[in-house]
């Protein structure tokens, strides 16, 4: 779907530099690594040398009696202090670049919930678990959570910000390379934490403008719409087969009698599916805890809802 010149494949020093701040962070990291390496060589090399040089040769060894040396002690207090201050100041300078938001940034709203990310653009376009931004353009993400604290992390862009329920937090980046990059959730948020992944697609401005206007469901059958919604939002917790994930598998659900946790049964029809999506705690399948599934009321439009019902109907 997208031409990609850079992949999100992780590399061992640092991930690919995909944003304007990445280079600054990596230079600082390189400085810190070199300074750390020198410190380790001095300390570790020092004690290994001393330990071997002054190993015990006989039980009557005479040892030196040195209690302290002010000059030396001042030096090894002051020099680390200076290095630490350089690290601190440099870190502050780079951090400033991360946290001072450009004025004309393209704003995208992000909502995190267990366990997916929703993205919403100014023109109303919405996507789940992937979003697209133009290259060489400052982008500001305005983020909130619907349940617990999540954290939005794009390793290739070196940006990360916690996403907190009840308030908005923000981060910004300016992508410098086109391609697709990994997004992780980095604040522990429960069972699906490690599956709460997303992708950011960085494309040329023109391609972005076109993408923004395209109705993602144009030309798709209702079933295909449903499948796409299912894969984006439901698959984290529900298998299309019959096996258990976080929630029950939905294969063969339609037309079946579903045993509920209060002992009653309900027919798995359109009404039941719709209710379970919009009011997930109204009826709980036997053997599953209540209160786990978030509501999708107001999150899905009618087409998507009908599509989902069609898709679930089709599951064997």
């Amino acid at each position, binding site marked *: 779907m997208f031409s990609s010149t850079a992949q999100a494949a992780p590399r061992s020093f640092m991930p690919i530099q995909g944003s304007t701040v990445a280079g600054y962070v990596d230079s600082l990291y390189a400085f810190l690594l070199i300074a750390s390496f020198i410190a380790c060589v001095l300390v570790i090399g020092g004690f290994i040398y001393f330990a071997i040089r002054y190993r015990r040769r006989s039980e009557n060894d005479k040892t030196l*009696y040195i209690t302290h040396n002010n000059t030396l002690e001042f030096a090894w207090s002051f020099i680390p202090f200076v290095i630490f201050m350089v690290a601190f100041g440099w870190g502050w300078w780079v951090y400033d670049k991360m946290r001072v938001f450009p004025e004309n940034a393209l704003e995208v709203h992000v909502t995190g919930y267990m366990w997916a990310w929703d993205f919403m653009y100014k023109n109303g376009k919405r996507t789940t678990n992937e979003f697209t931004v133009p290259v060489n353009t400052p982008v500001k993400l305005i983020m909130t959570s619907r349940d617990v604290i999540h954290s939005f992390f794009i390793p290739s862009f070196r940006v990360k910000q916690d996403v907190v329920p009840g308030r908005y937090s923000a981060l910004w980046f300016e992508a410098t390379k086109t391609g697709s990059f990994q997004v992780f959730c980095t604040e522990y948020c429960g069972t699906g934490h490690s599956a709460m992944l997303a992708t950011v697609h960085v494309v040329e401005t023109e391609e972005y403008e076109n993408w923004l206007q395209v109705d993602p469901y144009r030309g798709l059958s209702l079933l295909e719409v449903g499948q796409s919604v299912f894969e984006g939002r439901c698959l984290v917790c529900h298998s299309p087969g019959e096996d258990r994930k976080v929630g029950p598998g939905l294969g063969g659900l339609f037309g079946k009698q579903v045993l509920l946790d209060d002992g009653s049964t309900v027919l798995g029809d359109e009404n039941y599916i719709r209710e379970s999506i919009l009011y997930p705690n109204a009826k709980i399948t036997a053997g599953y805890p209540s209160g786990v599934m978030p509501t999708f009321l107001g999150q899905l439009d009618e087409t998507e809802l009908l599509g989902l019902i069609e898709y679930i109907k089709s599951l064997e």
Partner: protein
Amino acid sequence: MHGAHSHNYLNHEKGLWSWLTTLDHKRIGVLYMISVFIFFFIGGVFAMLIRWELFSSGQNIVSPAGYNQLMTFHGAIMVFMVIIPGIPAFLGNFFLPLQIGAKDVAFPRLNLLSWYCLMVGAAIAFMSLFFSGADTGWTFYTPYSIQTDTGTIWLVTGAFVMGFSSILTGLNFVVTTHKLRAPGMTFWKMPLFVWSLYSTAILQILATPVLGITLLLLVAERVLGIGIFDPALGGDPVLFQHFFWFYSHPAVYIMILPAMGIISELITTYSRKTIFGYKAIALSTVGIAAVSFFVWGHHMFVSGQSEIAGIIFSFITMLVGVPTAIKTFNWVATLYGGSVRFDAPLLYALGFIFLFTIGGVTGIILATIATNVHFHDTYFVVAHFHYVMVGGTLMAIMGGVYHWFPKMFGRIVDDGMARITFVLIFVGFNVTFFPQFVLGAMGLPRRYADYPVAYEALNKISSIGSWTIGLGFLLALYVIIHALKRGEKAGDNPWGARTLEWQTSSPPPHENFDKPPVVTAGPYEYR
């Protein structure tokens, strides 16, 4: 069976009941030793299971929900039941009174009570396993900890009760250090282990109550829904993090300061050299303790706290680095011109310096705010704190146990075997955790039950390393049991150390010294 001396604290009274009701600090130390070893074993099993699950991408042995329980219990057990009581309550209890020439700690009954607090707290914490477990991580972050449908409340209550254990130990040590020093033992003549326990005790006293109230509020939040941490009721979930880290950052120093004290003892003893910069080490210990109260926000650089706050916390964190660096340089300088004997305790001490240095410099990388944004909550952090907590504290415990074992039980540990445990643990540790720095730099977040395939190779290496560590600790257990049963009888001062605990018999008599000691010289007078 014990020692050459007919009368000592081990045979002073007989029977299990005499142990469970003992007021002797040495016996309470042994009680702590047994419980800490058992908890460490359980926490270690959880660690092995974690590494097994992470051996390859995809689900291996447990579901993601199961994995989250593993990592929660591994963290909570290791922090609250192993590392926090590990040195102060176990080795400290045994040796603080001996090192200052006291007959006991100031409040023996409270001392015993503190052990029972740990036991009861641990029992409550483990109760959660019968109520669908706990899956919040040991940090209990709200609002997840309020919403999750598990037995979190048991684990939280258990941690609360264990807090009393820590407070009582701290209280006892402060008063003991102030009031029960032998004649002539001025503050500047105290062994550095005592200095470190004293500083630790102050942290335990001042920080733990804040954790107490925080955990109480969390319990109230779950039971009553008081809303202080719940955004839906006007509360602030991030406030919990502030409260939590106000305790838990000093807690990090509760874990590492006493370890540093042990290292000072080991380095001097096995190089027969007076410590270089005694006052600098003593004062830097107190300095670290004091400053550690003002750095908690470095756990929260990306939490949404203000940028200014983040920058200030970054600055103060850098300041903590200075006294830490001073100590390390002092230990290295102490070796200069010494007579170094490579017994297992010294190997552990050198291993400590090696690993702690790496843990320290990566700490600076994390304290630098701009790099922290990338590394926060990734495996880089996991590697960093394991280098400090395992590479630091556990190495010190191992070294301390081998060093003081002859004094505690009157028997000598097989040094060859002990050195093998060092090699296994040290090598295994680096194989396990060094790759995790790289994983973190590559962006892999922590607390992930599963990971993309790109991260698999390094995870495999890490898991293989963990088996080596496991093997090392199992061998260490064997070495200790072997020494208890068949170890050669130890003299009163097998290492030729100068501190007071070596001036009494091995094992020490019930009241520690046959004749109250009078101190005239410093603790490291090797001339």
